[in-house]
């Protein structure tokens, strides 16, 4: 029950994109096409779950016992970078079509603040290992939901008559604001 609450909390109630503002860059950059939004969401979710595991283990067995907490930021970002590189190699070997579809978005996951943010939140909230993994999965689900919703809306927006000055990023942010308002409706759930 506790785990379910963590999952739903991360995915919907405190959506990483729409209420913590983590991962805004891909949210605005990659939400042009629905299909690439789905792949990006999947890849990010995978990296998020792996990061949750890796950074938790790192903190619990290396940084914590050695009292190297001040190295957290440096160590975590290195883990994330290595992990993204690893995921890239695995996908390249096992599924070349998926690799081509994701293209440049894959290495860019390193600088997605949702990933490092997740690692830091796990430490702040002192989650256990299983909780961290569930939290990572929830965050990934939330990111995917927000990205796909936005991509769907933007595909429709291409046909709309938007004032010239607001085209592109402006209208995307206004739509995101409206979505954030809608997601506030979940606030009372937990």
């Amino acid at each position, binding site marked *: 029950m506790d785990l379910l609450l963590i999952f739903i909390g991360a995915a919907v109630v405190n959506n990483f994109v*729409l*209420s*913590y*503002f*983590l*991962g*805004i*860059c891909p949210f*605005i950059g990659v939400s042009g096409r629905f299909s690439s939004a789905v792949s990006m969401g999947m890849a990010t979710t995978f990296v998020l779950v792996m990061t949750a595991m890796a950074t938790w283990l790192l903190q619990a067995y290396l940084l914590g016992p050695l009292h190297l907490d*001040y*190295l*957290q*930021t*440096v160590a975590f*970002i*290195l883990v994330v*970078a290595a992990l993204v590189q690893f995921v890239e190699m695995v996908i390249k070997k096992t599924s070349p079509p998926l690799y081509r579809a994701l293209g440049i978005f894959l290495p860019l996951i*390193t*600088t*997605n*603040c949702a*990933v*490092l*943010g997740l690692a*830091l*939140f796990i430490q*702040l909230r002192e989650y256990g290992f299983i909780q961290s993994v569930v939290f990572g999965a929830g965050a990934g689900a939330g990111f995917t939901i927000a990205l796909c919703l936005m991509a769907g809306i933007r595909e429709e927006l291409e046909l709309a008559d938007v*004032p*010239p*000055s*607001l085209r592109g*990023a*402006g*209208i*995307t*942010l*206004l739509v*995101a*604001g*409206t979505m*954030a*308002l809608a997601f*506030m409706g979940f606030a009372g759930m937990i």
Partner: protein
Amino acid sequence: MKGQVSARQEILKGLWDQNPTLRQLLGMCPTLAITTSAINGVAMGLAVIFVLICSNLMISLVRRLVPNQVRIAAYIVIIATFVTVVDLTMKARFPELSSSLGAFIPLIVVNCIILGRAEAFASKNGPWRSVLDAVGMGAGFTVSLTFLASLREILGNGTLFGVTLFPAWEPWVVMILPAGGFLTLGLILGGVNLINRSHEASRRRALVEASRAAAGFALPGAAAGTPARGEA
């Protein structure tokens, strides 16, 4: 080559032409997340300026030593080091500011402005120019952040830097909430685009008139190229 770009232009380009937040849309996460009060905006801006100057200087100094394949990793380690310095300093000196910015101080590591400037500028230019570029970009970021934060604080709380401006103001709570951040920034971007479009239009009109006036002496169009437009 653009070796002739003056020091002044190097700084000024970050403020408007290539403003990282409003024109290049980099570093959106802290921009939206911490701009609930003007003081947060200023603090975040100063932290980013410090990291940006230090990392640009450092990266520009080591740019010939780092092999091309591992440069991104090397840049990230350099940036993370300075971010840790800022994080620990703020925790020690300004504990309440540090807690209100929360995880967004360590998250400066993944702020695309810093890695972006490292990759696009500091890795190709000397230390002096890289510092100037960092000052300009950092100032552009700080100004946009403070502007956005002030708007949100005034409308959402009726205060500015904690000083009550309108005692009878019924605060629009939504401006402080996430939705308000998206909406305000979207409208500001629209405004900036509007200003740029009208500038562009009036400059084009001036150009046409100038070339018409000069038509007797020179070929139209050959007059006054516009090199001022910032190149990356």
